[in-house]
């Protein structure tokens, strides 16, 4: 830490849970703010001031005059500019010690996983349901904490969704309302997103410092008119398509449909997949040539014990948390018993940026039928 930083963050150093070690932790943290509007403005300001080392900002909008009533990142000169670039310029004046990555694009099912995967924590400061369901699903797929807030007129709500450890946005709202006005239609008191965005920043800093969030399994609702904060308890919904039986999908292909918020079945159909396959014979040849690739087995440990091809075992349900164990430089061949799980795993790995991923067509069953030779087998298939 430089002398300038020591002076800048001096008010943090005597705080319990923070201190110099905590400040270094903040500096190592990477937080992504999706939406740089009413919620994102205060959240980004405080995260930047606190010394979070890397702040990502994703937004495809440009600054408009009607934004200035609440979006405190911007001023009159920014009108017409991309929000991400105007925000970056403003924030770097506040704290030039941090990295700010502007993503001036719309979050879609195609870029969500590749953008989000580089960050530790996500703040949802968007203004529409499609984006909120997309962020929720992407964070569940990647195992990233999602700090959610929404506002309406004089009210706001906030919750923290921790994948694999608590409910998600779909547990709370299984479907969006058929009609729901946004801020431009219904209006919003400017300080309401200010308060809610600041609460999002508070929870983000706590998570970055390794503390628990107070809003996991809770929904905080704020009403500015009677100045009340109400807390509700939320458990994982047994009917939630994401949380009900572990993770039931591993990509965002269901967001391709027109009704982006609606869950449809995941793409595990080999006939519609664009993932390349490799035949058992071709795999055998690669093995004999000692080619440099990773054979990834995404079955369960019990299946692996029965018979295996000496591949690296990461069960599909753990892949979102353990994909860091795989070397991105190497090509990856995924297999399961047949094709279902390996295709989901391969599509997931492709979406988060693995350049060469193939799956073993027919899985270990096809290998047993076509090659027969199985070095690690204790029980016949």
């Amino acid at each position, binding site marked *: 830490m430089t002398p300038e930083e020591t002076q800048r963050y001096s008010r943090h150093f005597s705080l319990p849970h923070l201190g110099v070690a905590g400040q270094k932790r903040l500096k190592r943290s990477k937080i992504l703010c999706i*939406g740089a*509007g*009413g*919620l*994102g403005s205060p959240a980004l300001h405080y995260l930047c001031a606190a010394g979070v080392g890397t702040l990502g900002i994703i937004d495809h909008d440009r600054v408009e005059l009607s934004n200035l009533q609440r979006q405190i990142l911007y001023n009159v000169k920014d009108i017409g500019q991309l929000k991400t670039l105007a925000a970056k310029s403003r924030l770097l004046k506040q704290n030039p010690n941090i990295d700010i990555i502007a993503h001036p694009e719309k979050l879609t099912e195609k870029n969500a996983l590749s953008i989000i995967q580089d960050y530790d924590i996500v703040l*949802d*400061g*968007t*203004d*529409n*349901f499609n984006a*909120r369901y997309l962020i929720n699903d992407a964070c569940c797929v990647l195992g990233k904490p999602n700090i959610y*807030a*929404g*506002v*309406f007129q004089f*009210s*706001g*709500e906030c919750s923290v969704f921790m994948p694999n450890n608590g409910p998600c946005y779909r547990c*709370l*709202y*299984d*479907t*969006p*309302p*058929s009609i*729901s006005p*946004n*801020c431009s239609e*219904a209006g*919003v008191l400017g300080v309401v*997103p200010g308060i809610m965005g600041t609460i999002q920043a508070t929870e983000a800093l706590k998570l970055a410092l390794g503390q628990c969030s107070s809003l996991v399994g809770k*929904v905080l*609702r704020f009403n500015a008119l009677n100045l009340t904060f*109400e*807390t*509700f*308890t*939320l*458990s994982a*919904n*047994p*009917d939630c398509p994401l949380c009900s039986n572990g993770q039931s999908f591993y990509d965002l292909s269901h967001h391709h449909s027109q009704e982006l918020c609606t869950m449809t079945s995941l793409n595990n159909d080999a006939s519609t997949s664009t993932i390349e396959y490799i035949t058992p014979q071709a795999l055998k040849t690669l093995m004999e040539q000692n080619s440099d690739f990773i054979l990834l087995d995404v079955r369960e440990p019990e299946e692996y014990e029965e018979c295996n091809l000496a591949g690296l075992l990461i069960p599909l349900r753990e892949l979102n948390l353990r994909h860091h164990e795989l070397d991105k430089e190497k090509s990856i061949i995924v297999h399961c018993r047949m094709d279902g799980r390996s295709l989901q795993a391969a599509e997931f790995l492709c979406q988060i940026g693995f350049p060469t991923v193939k799956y073993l067509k027919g899985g270990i069953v096809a290998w047993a039928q076509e090659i027969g030779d199985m070095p690690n087998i204790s029980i016949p298939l």
Partner: protein
Amino acid sequence: MQIILFNNVSLSMERELTLAELLVQQGYEENGFAVAVNQTFVPRSTYASVCIREGDKVDVIVPMQGG
């Protein structure tokens, strides 16, 4: 008579109702909202089996999409 608090307004029910019956009575027939009984959210699949009694607090929570 059973007195409950529905969306922070006092409401009299002639008898105990299931949450599903109460919602229909109050005009909430579509999806797109969540319901909390005594500050705890209730999964939609249990609306027909949750009984609302004297003194209960029921809140229909509509998501806020603004940001």
